[in-house]
């Protein structure tokens, strides 16, 4: 859906809902209004009925008073206290005519009346003193004149029509013009008996029926009620009609009252309610709008969240991509560096200089890639801090070795001050600690053109809970950092002062990684710098103390160590020591055996994990070297089984991993799996000896005595300059390196290598034919190491390529398998050919006879 259409749709929906709510509210409002009007009118009517009631009461009293007066006169007449004539005279006055009738209603005295009064007379004689109205005559009241048990006369009094209309009539309630309009109506004759002033001219006279306004409705109501009141805008918009019958007569009193005067304050309530309702409607509208806005906002925030998630995903993907890329780049880079090493050995003059440049650039590239790898690990949260026991002095030692060399190269003075009281045995992440310190020091060296770099280590904080805070202070006399750049200093991919520093390599990741790592170790990092004069970086790292053994005079130890290094050439012997070497590759076994031959250590070998387990159950070994990649049971599994083996006699024996997988993090991996240490293949003699010396029980180590025939000099003896030109496959320098410079041993290796040619080739062929790529990979992996050990660099490279293809085949996605398999098939023969050539050359050059 297009965004425009979507917005329109949404707005319409919103408007629709709003209108719906509004319509409902309006409906409720109208219902309420009409209901309230209704209620109000009912109240008005009710109030008015009371008005009518009291009006009727007034009339009733008036009429009864008249009757009482008349009855009194009648009593006087009956008692013959006064004569008939006087009695009649007594009740007569202006407009009120007295009279005397016989029992048949005939006039005897006084006023003459029409014949129709006979019925009223009969009624009166039946005991009902009564009022009647006669059209054009007037209002007539009668009372019987009792004489004992009988009655002979009826006394009557007539209010003439004209007197009734006069204002002075007692039936006229004198009222102000703005008060109620009141009239008396006779239901028998359907006439108005007593009208109010100007009745016929008022709006309350219904000329069409010659009756008061709204009479029919009032009468209809009166049929079922004692009083009636009507407020009907059809009749009169401003007046309330009310009526009440006068008891014991046929008259009703009718009144008209102004609506406003009845309701007075009630209308205010009405208005207030409507006003409040209006207010509520407004509030409700606001609320609805608010709710809708919220809904929109919620939808937007959902979109935002999705976008953020997307961004995070993308970022993670980027990190992963970077990690993968780095890993992928490292492999060929290793090859490049390796090849370059070859060039450097064989080249001379300017060519060598170029090669050296390649080496330098390559190493920089490698370190950059390592940085990226580390950083992407931190970013993706895969970086973990693994606290282990370590020796601070050893770390500082390494640091010194690495930095002093670089500083020396640059002509900088590097001094190190280590507080003598710092405990040596600490617990923390040794690897990361080292990385942090080295990074900072490298930076210092990098950005200091001349002068000195001073590294100070202090421990602050008391040894409470076995904790202390290490403080590493790096002071340099370098270029310094501008004040405004300090904030950017620790952000990733930021490099400062590019103009000035463009000749300095770096990704800009170094400090970022340092900061992250420091934070991960709960430490802090701060910088103090004067631009142009130098910077001081201070890192504080909390570490746990394992043992309170002061580190002592570190500088003296360095001196001693250097001395020791010098003396290392004096090798050692350990005739009582027993070690076990496990590798599926015979050649590797031979290499280790040969390398350690001089130490007179008893070496047992095993070619599989199974054999290894058998051996450690039978014998005790001081060290076990365990290859990682082995068919059936690999090194890690073997180690786990060995650790769980109850019958094992090597419970405390250090297990050292041998692996060709020398990528970053492998060390951690092996240590995590339970190995004591690890060695990367191909192993060189010096490293191997050092490791053996490190892990052998000291009592078994003896000084090497008069081993004077060991070749002196750090560099391997210069390889004889190649004479055969380009067709040489055996790199003697490499081979000698792996054989500790022992030519005899090199020849021995070469011999084994050549001897095994047929077996290995056959094995590989079989694997490929059987399509058993997993085994093929393992075997070709072995070939890679052995080839390198005898100096077959080319073959080793080729084997490595095959191994990687094999790995990709077994671990990679299904659809790429065919490609990898094809690669293996294409290059398999090449590898075998190289092997053959190597063997041929071995015969030719070194006179090896299988």
């Amino acid at each position: 859906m297009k965004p425009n259409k979507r917005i329109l749709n949404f707005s319409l929906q919103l408007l629709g809902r709003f209108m719906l709510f509004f319509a409902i509210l309006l409906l409720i409002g109208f219902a309420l209004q009409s209901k309230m009007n209704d209620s109000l009118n009912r109240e008005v009517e009710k109030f008015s009925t009371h008005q009518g009631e009291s009006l009727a009461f007034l009339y009733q009293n008036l009429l009864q008073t008249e009757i009482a007066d008349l009855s009194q006169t009648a009593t006087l007449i009956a008692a013959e206290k006064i004569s008939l004539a006087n009695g009649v005279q007594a009740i007569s006055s202006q407009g009120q005519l007295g009279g005397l009738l016989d029992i048949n209603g005939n006039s005897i005295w006084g006023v003459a009346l029409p014949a129709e009064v006979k019925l009223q007379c009969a009624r009166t004689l039946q005991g009902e003193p009564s009022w009647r109205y006669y059209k054009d005559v007037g209002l007539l009241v009668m009372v019987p004149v009792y004489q004992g048990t009988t009655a002979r006369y009826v006394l009557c009094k007539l209010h003439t029509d004209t007197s009734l209309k006069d204002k002075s009539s007692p039936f006229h309630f004198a009222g102000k013009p703005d008060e109620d309009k009141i009239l008396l109506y006779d239901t028998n004759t359907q006439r108005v008996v007593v009208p109010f002033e100007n009745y016929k001219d008022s709006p309350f006279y219904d000329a069409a029926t010659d009756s008061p306004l709204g009479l029919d409705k009032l009468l209809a109501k009166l049929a079922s009620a004692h009083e009636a009141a009507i407020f009907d805008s059809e009749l009169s918009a401003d007046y309330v009609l009310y009526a009440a019958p006068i008891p014991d007569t046929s008259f009703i009193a009718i009144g008209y009252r102004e609506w406003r005067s009845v309701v007075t304050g009630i209308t205010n309530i009405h208005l207030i309610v409507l006003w409040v309702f209006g207010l509520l409607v407004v509030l409700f509208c606001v609320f609805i709008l608010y709710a809708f806005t919220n809904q929109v906002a919620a939808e937007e925030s959902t979109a935002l969240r999705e976008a953020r998630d997307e961004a995070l995903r993308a970022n993670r993907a980027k990190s992963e991509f970077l990690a993968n890329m780095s890993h992928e780049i490292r492999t060929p880079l290793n090859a490049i560096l390796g090849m370059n090493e070859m060039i450097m050995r064989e080249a001379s003059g300017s060519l060598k200089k170029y090669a050296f440049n390649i080496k330098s650039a390559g190493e920089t590239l490698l370190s950059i890639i390592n940085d990226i790898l580390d950083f992407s690990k931190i970013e993706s949260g895969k970086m973990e801090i693994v606290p282990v026991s370590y020796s601070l002095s050893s770390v500082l030692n390494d640091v010194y070795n690495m930095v002093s060399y670089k500083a020396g190269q640059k002509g900088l003075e590097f001094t190190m001050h280590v507080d003598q009281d710092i405990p040596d045995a600490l617990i923390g992440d040794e690897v990361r600690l080292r990385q942090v310190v080295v990074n900072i020091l490298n930076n210092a060296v990098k950005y200091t053109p001349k002068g000195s770099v001073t590294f100070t280590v202090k421990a602050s904080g008391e040894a409470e809970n076995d904790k202390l805070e290490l403080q590493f202070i790096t002071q340099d006399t370098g270029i310094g950092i501008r004040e405004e750049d300090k904030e950017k200093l620790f952000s990733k991919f930021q490099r400062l002062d590019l103009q000035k520093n463009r000749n300095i390599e770096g990704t800009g990741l170094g400090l970022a990684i340092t900061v992250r790592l420091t934070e991960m170790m709960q430490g802090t990092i701060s910088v103090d710098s004067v631009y142009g004069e130098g910077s001081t970086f201070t890192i504080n790292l909390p570490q746990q103390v394992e043992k309170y053994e002061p580190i002592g005079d570190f500088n003296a130890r360095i001196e001693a160590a250097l001395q020791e290094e010098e003396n290392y050439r004096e090798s050692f012997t350990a005739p009582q020591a027993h070690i076990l070497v496990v590798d599926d590759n015979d050649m590797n076994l031979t290499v280790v055996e040969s390398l350690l031959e001089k130490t007179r250590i008893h070496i047992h070998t095993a070619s599989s994990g199974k054999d290894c387990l058998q051996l450690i159950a039978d014998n005790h070994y001081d060290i076990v070297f365990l290859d990682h990649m082995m068919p059936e049971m690999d090194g890690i599994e073997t180690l786990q089984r060995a650790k769980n083996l109850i019958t094992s006699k090597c419970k405390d024996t250090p297990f050292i991993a041998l692996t060709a997988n020398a990528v970053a993090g492998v060390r951690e991996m092996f240590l995590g799996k339970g190995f004591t240490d690890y060695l990367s293949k191909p192993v060189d003699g010096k490293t191997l000896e050092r490791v053996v010396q490190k892990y052998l029980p000291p009592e078994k180590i003896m000084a090497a005595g008069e081993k004077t025939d060991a070749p002196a000099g750090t560099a391997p003896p210069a390889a004889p300059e190649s004479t055969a030109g380009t067709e040489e496959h055996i790199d003697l320098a490499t081979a000698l390196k792996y054989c500790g410079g022992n030519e005899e041993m090199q020849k021995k290796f070469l011999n084994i290598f050549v001897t095994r040619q047929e077996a290995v080739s056959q094995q590989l062929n079989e694997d490929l034919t059987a399509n058993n790529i997993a085994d093929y990979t393992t075997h070709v992996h072995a070939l890679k190491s052995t080839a390198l050990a005898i100096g077959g660099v080319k073959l080793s490279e080729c084997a490595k390529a095959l191994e990687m293809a094999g790995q990709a085949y077994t671990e990679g996605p299904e659809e790429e398998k065919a490609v990898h398999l094809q690669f293996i098939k294409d290059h398999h023969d090449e590898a075998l050919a190289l092997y053959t050539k190597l063997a041929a050359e071995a015969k030719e050059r070194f006179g090896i006879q299988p």
Partner: protein
Amino acid sequence: MKLSSHDMLKRRFIAFALLQAFLLCLAIFLSINYFGSAIWEKRDAVGLILASPKDAPGWPREMAQGLQKACNERSFNLYIEDNVNSDDNSLARVTDNLVNKGVKKIFLANPGYQHNLEDIARRYPQVEFYANSVGETISDRMFNYSMRYYEVRYLAGILAGLHSQTGVVGYLAPFPALETRQDVNAFALGVLKVRPEARILVEWTGQWISPEKENKALYILKHSGADVITYFAASQHAAQEAASLGLDYIDFHTAGLNTSPHCIASIETDWQKVYGKLLHINGHKTANKVYWQGMLDDVISLRLSPGLTPREEALVLRARQELLQGYPVFSGNIVDREGRVRCQEGEVIANNSLREKMDWLVKGVEIIETK
């Protein structure tokens, strides 16, 4: 075009939402409209207390039906309590019942409740009690209502006097009381008006309902020469017996005309009108406590059999016309059995006297003593 399920769902949802909105509106509208209406719409209620079953033929049923119609006219609710014994205190109980139902007026159909009624009426000043009697207890606590039956008796007397061959007419009445004497006297005045020499034989049976005594009395009347009779009793038994004896009679019950050709006329009461007027009374306002309605109020009449002679019919109708024009029955020269003049020419017996003090019988009335 076939709709996708999504559209169907959407439509259903919209329909549902509209329905909800509609129901909501309806609920709000109804609740506003009917809120508090109960106060205004409350109907007035009245009660009727009967001694006999309300469906029993005769007065009770006529009264109940008449009151029901009058109530329907005015949209009143009517609660009827029947079979109420006047001797124990069940009157108080049913009155409580009715008052609890919210009645404004209670009508008592039968005379004879008066004695208990005043105490009960005092307990409920807000309720108007209407006792069916004007003669005896008059209290400002309650209303009395009755019919001026004597007017119709007067007409009946005229008819009986005209119709009798023998000049002897019979009258069966339970006992000499105010109301029965009024009726007997009016009847006698009617007979004597058209037949001054006629004999009026009155027989007291002693009870409101007593078939045996009525049979016996009728037998005696017949053998005394009476050929036209009338009666005053709570049942129609006397009429049936008279018919079986071959006597013409004037029935005291409305349905009389349909039962036998011997019935020459019957007294009719328009209960609906009677009660209509009573229902219209505003008890709190009126000063009048006694409602004694008669022919002037058009609530009672004498219905004549179609088999009468033209003379009989004409004279009866003329007399009725006179009454309707205001002629008082008890007027002119009236002498009682003892020879005392009760009323002179040009006079009328006063209403109070008529209602409360009629302790005499008109000259010409013969009382037949039975043993």
